[in-house]
């Protein structure tokens, strides 16, 4: 007659059995993929981000108003008007949409390969406080 009070050495340890009768002990952390509440990611955009509509229309003057008339060197720095090897400013500010396309490999409208490169280097070096910085910064954010 078997003794039911003693654990049967042929059976797996009760603590190691999961619901499915699997004898392998599970020590992995529980993870739930389905949403608990509103989702798993909340994004805080910095205050200077613009809405998707206005990003495309915002403007980046080259150079900014404080340096109006200055020429743009190859590396994007502003040099005196008429400097040899530097490029005259474009006739108008560029729109966010135009700069975004230039960042993707196209050329700014009305530019040559070299002047496009000079203007883009200028734009990439924009700092906070310079005209066009906010517009340029917001072009680099996902989904405008």
């Amino acid at each position: 007659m078997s003794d039911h009070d003693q654990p049967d050495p042929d059976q797996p340890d009760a603590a190691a059995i999961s619901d499915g009768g699997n004898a392998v002990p599970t020590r992995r952390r529980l993870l739930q993929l389905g949403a608990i509440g509103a989702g798993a990611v909340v994004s805080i955009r910095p205050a200077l981000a613009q809405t998707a509509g206005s990003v495309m229309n915002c403007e980046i003057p080259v150079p900014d108003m404080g340096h109006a008339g200055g020429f743009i060197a190859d590396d994007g720095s502003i040099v005196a008007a008429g400097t040899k090897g530097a490029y005259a400013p474009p006739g108008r500010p560029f729109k966010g949409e135009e700069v975004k396309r230039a960042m993707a490999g196209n050329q700014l409208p009305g530019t040559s390969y070299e002047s496009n490169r000079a203007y883009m280097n200028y734009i990439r070096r924009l700092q906070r406080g310079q005209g066009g910085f906010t517009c340029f910064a917001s072009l680099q954010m996902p989904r405008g």
Partner: protein
Amino acid sequence: MRYRAPEAAALISTDLAPFTALFDRRSGITHILASPAPEILAALTEPMTIDMLLAVLAREYDLADPDPAALAVRLDELVASGLVATT
């Protein structure tokens, strides 16, 4: 379609248990992540399809709901935030 996490150098991470704060240098955006988003990002050590990712997560965790559709919803959120790219 494969999902790709950013390289580690692009992110600054802080533990705010039970959340994780992630600053993405590329966008300047701070994201607050709740489980399972940080685990999903950590599992994406290389570009993976949903099925590959589900298999990795199932190995590392005891998945309460090992459902590709549920994982797809989580991945959509991460893609929308800019943290995960698709190739």
